């Protein structure tokens, strides 16, 4: 048997169910690796809680009532509220906050038998592409600790890449699962908007936020996604009225005849040569498996950036109003009246990027600007979604890079927030359209930093995306590569 921490979700689930190893042994092995908090990934760990959950899993395994993922550990992005661990969303304003309930996604994974390893770092309120916006410090990339892990689910990606957890939950608003997965050489999928419940996921941009799994392989992601999704209409009105689906059951399809759309806008001058080389090679692998490449166009790709950076901040400016020092979280210690309490609390509690987006959002929703910004952005958003539908008339899935470059150096964009925004160009369109998208590792670029390929499917086509990735991973080994020293 491989070392426990080098086993993926499927392997661990099998080993646990066949009683080759106990849940307590697995949990202990992973907890041991989190000592010293490598890469600043974890924000809250409680070994007592984790071991108690593992013991409960062992009892269910012994009783024959084990769930499909019984005893397999998982780390949760800190935007999912949890009863057993503090939840901060990477913000000082929620320092020490403890939720009286678990997010639906957390609860579903727990029902499937998973054991929580704790909460992992992320950009504050999921706003960022490098995990440098966390109030609790940046996360480093396990492949090169002088580089960023991507964001906002940077802690999730780094934890999986460094084998601190076999899997992690992530959230994706404009690429926050796909881009860190790509930067850290792991696999992650953002399902169709509405597939996974948003209840208990601290809202950044409500019309875009989606939960998804991050793990080493498509096979693992399929197992996790099957457990995460499902209608939650009593708690989330935007949840899709769809039954849970077994995505693992559909991983055996051949790629013969599969039409892969290649959007020319994703392969322009902005794409770094090392990334392009890795993507081209991956496309060749898929062609060799019988897929056909079809040139397509997504003409409003560039517009996705301004559209996203209007809509997401607009929603965020309103979503973050509840953090006012009145009911929970941080409250300034000294203030003179109500307005000064609000101002000081929020000035102290929020980081720079969050403030920037709140201000942008308040501005675009203001009287006199609403039509020119917010309404216009909504119109273009619909056009972007229409462009995808035209493209899907000609292809089954769309493939391209996740990001224009590999992970950049820590602090590289510190003085230029726009540089981060521009790097989101390939992930934003699918987010705005509410389409499922995933990232899978397809090689390495400069500095032996991982490159991820993005696959975008039509609505509810997660199974098809996962199958394409799985077929690719059956023929390649990039998903098993690990950083030096791990």
């Amino acid at each position, binding site marked *: 048997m491989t070392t426990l921490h080098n086993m993926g979700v499927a392997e661990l689930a099998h080993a646990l169910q066949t009683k080759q190893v106990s849940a307590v042994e697995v949990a202990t092995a992973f907890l041991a690796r989190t000592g010293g908090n490598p890469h600043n990934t974890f924000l809250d760990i409680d070994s007592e809680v984790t071991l108690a959950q593992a013991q409960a899993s062992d009892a269910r395994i012994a009783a024959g009532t084990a769930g499909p993922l019984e005893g397999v550990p998982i780390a949760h992005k800190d935007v999912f509220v949890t009863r057993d661990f503090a939840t901060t969303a990477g913000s000082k304003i929620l320092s020490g906050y403890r*939720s*009286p309930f678990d997010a639906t996604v957390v609860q579903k994974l727990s029902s499937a038998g998973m054991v929580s390893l704790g909460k992992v770092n992320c950009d504050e309120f999921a706003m960022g592409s490098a995990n440098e916006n966390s109030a609790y410090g940046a996360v480093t990339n396990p492949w090169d600790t002088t580089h960023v892990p991507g964001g906002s689910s940077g802690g999730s990606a780094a934890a999986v890449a460094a084998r601190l957890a076999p899997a992690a939950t992530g959230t994706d608003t404009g690429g926050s699962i796909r881009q860190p997965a790509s930067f850290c050489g792991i696999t992650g999928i953002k399902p169709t908007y509405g597939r996974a419940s948003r209840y208990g996921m601290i809202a950044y941009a409500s019309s875009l936020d989606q939960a998804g799994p991050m793990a080493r392989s498509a096979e693992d992601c399929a197992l996790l996604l099957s457990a995460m999704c499902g209608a939650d209409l009593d708690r989330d*009105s935007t949840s899709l009225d769809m039954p849970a689906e077994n995505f693992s059951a559909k991983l055996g399809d051949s790629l013969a005849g599969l039409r892969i759309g290649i959007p020319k806008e994703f392969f322009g001058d902005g794409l770094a040569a090392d990334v392009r080389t890795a993507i081209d090679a991956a496309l060749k692998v898929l062609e060799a498996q019988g897929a056909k490449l079809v040139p397509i166009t997504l003409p409003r790709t560039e517009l996705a950036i301004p559209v996203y950076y209007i809509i997401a901040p607009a929603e965020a400016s309103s979503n973050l109003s509840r953090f006012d020092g009145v*009911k929970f979280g941080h409250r300034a210690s000294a203030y003179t009246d109500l307005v000064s309490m609000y101002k000081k609390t929020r000035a102290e509690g929020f980081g720079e990027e969050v403030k920037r987006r709140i201000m942008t959002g308040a501005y675009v929703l203001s009287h006199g600007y609403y039509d020119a910004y917010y309404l216009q952005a909504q119109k273009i958003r619909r056009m972007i979604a229409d462009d995808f539908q035209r493209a899907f008339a000609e292809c089954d899935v769309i493939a391209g890079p996740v990001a224009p470059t590999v992970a950049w150096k820590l602090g590289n964009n510190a003085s230029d927030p726009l540089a981060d925004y521009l790097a989101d160009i390939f992930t934003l369109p699918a987010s705005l359209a509410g389409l499922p998208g995933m990232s899978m590792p397809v090689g390495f670029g400069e500095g032996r930093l991982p490159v991820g390929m993005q696959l975008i499917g039509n609505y509810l086509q997660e199974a098809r995306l996962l199958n394409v990735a799985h077929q690719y991973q059956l023929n390649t080994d990039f998903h098993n590569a690990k950083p030096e020293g791990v």
Partner: protein
Amino acid sequence: MSAPKLVQGYEVVIGFETHAQLSTQSKIFSRASVAFGAEPNTQACAVDMALPGTLPVMNVGAVERAIEFGLAVNSHIAERSIFARKNYFYPDLPKGYQISQFEIPVVQGGEVSFFLEEGKETVHKTVRLVRAHLEEDAGKSLHEDFIGQSGIDLNRAGTPLLEIVTEPDMRSSEEAVAYAKELHKIVTWIGICDGNMQEGSFRCDANVSVRKPGGELGTRREIKNLNSFKFMQQAIDFEVRWQIDQIEDGHAIEQATVLFDPDTGETRAMRTKEDAADYRYFPDPDLPPLVISRDWVERVKSDMAELPRVMAERFVKDYALPEYDATQLTQSKAVAAYFEATAKACGQPKLASNWIMGEVSRRLNSGEVTFDTIPVSAAQLGALISRIQDNTINNNSAKQVFEVLWTDDANAQGAADPARVDAIIEAKGLKQMNDTGELEKIIDEVLAANPKNVEEFKAGNAKALNGLVGPIMKASKGKANPAQVNALLMKKLS
């Protein structure tokens, strides 16, 4: 329509915004209870407290009540309406925004009609509605209970409200109050609101302005939170006088929100337009558009009780009542039911109507009693009217019987038996004197005793007859039939 009534040469223009609390069990976007009067924050769940990660889920019962209202006032029920966020910071607003409807409300247009006494005339008035939209209430700040700080009670946060907005169609405080009363009647009749004004279930804001007749609309000031019909009238009257005084003194009216202080009887500005917040309305991404199918509307319609105006039309048609009577008798379900039962018991709808609008409502108004606890049953009132109709008793005696029925302990003890009417008539000896012989004897005696009145009458003074009728009624102990007395007198004196 009569010409607009002017105050010191100014026309008064009033529009209303009313917040009716919908009578659901739970909140508009959560499952917490809306029951009034619980300990602070015991009826606020995670959603109401806006805890991180919580989301709103629409209460279908609130939507159905909005549909019922729309049907009751002939509105268009929007097939698709949108929830929007109204953003502002206040401690009793847990999310930092209120979920409301802005651009596309669920109920569009409609009208409220009512009768109104203007001098001796009864005028029919119609107020047009702009819209009615669903929204959530905020919590309450408790400033008095804590020293140096404010407490926040979120029990009310998320309570479902229907905000009903009129065109500026009212032209006096009387019209405004009549509108508010009619609206109150409608919402309580169809049962979408308990109408309890003290508890804040029915709160009115009045937008008041004045102008010279035919001129442009004046700048309005909004009087907030009028929670009694009495204050409503006082507040508007004060506001109108204040605005006219300002204009007459050469001051312009500044758009403002004002509060009425019942202790001083004055309105006082709370904030002016300069402080008006930019609410940054935008569609709430947590709630999909509210889609209401025609089927749903039809289903709600078929489950609704007969509406007051439909019932009033039926009263006119089936009972041959004047329109005014029919409207008065459909002020509440209870009075309508009481009327119908009385009319059926005696077969005299107009008499039943007269009695209910007269004696019965006089007694109800003077006491704590309502139609639900009324001591005189409809069957008894019907029996009483029958006894007038068949000349057993006269109207005066009937009033005495009614008084006994109302106050009598035996009656209060559940013996609301129509047989009590005859028993009281018997016991008090109120039976009308229908024996002409006996009456003629009394008349002859009175005529003999009052020769002066007889002479005056014969000389052409018709009033002199009263001086004869009085003693005759007295001599008969009130039991003579007044019509018969008159007829016999005329015969004897001619």
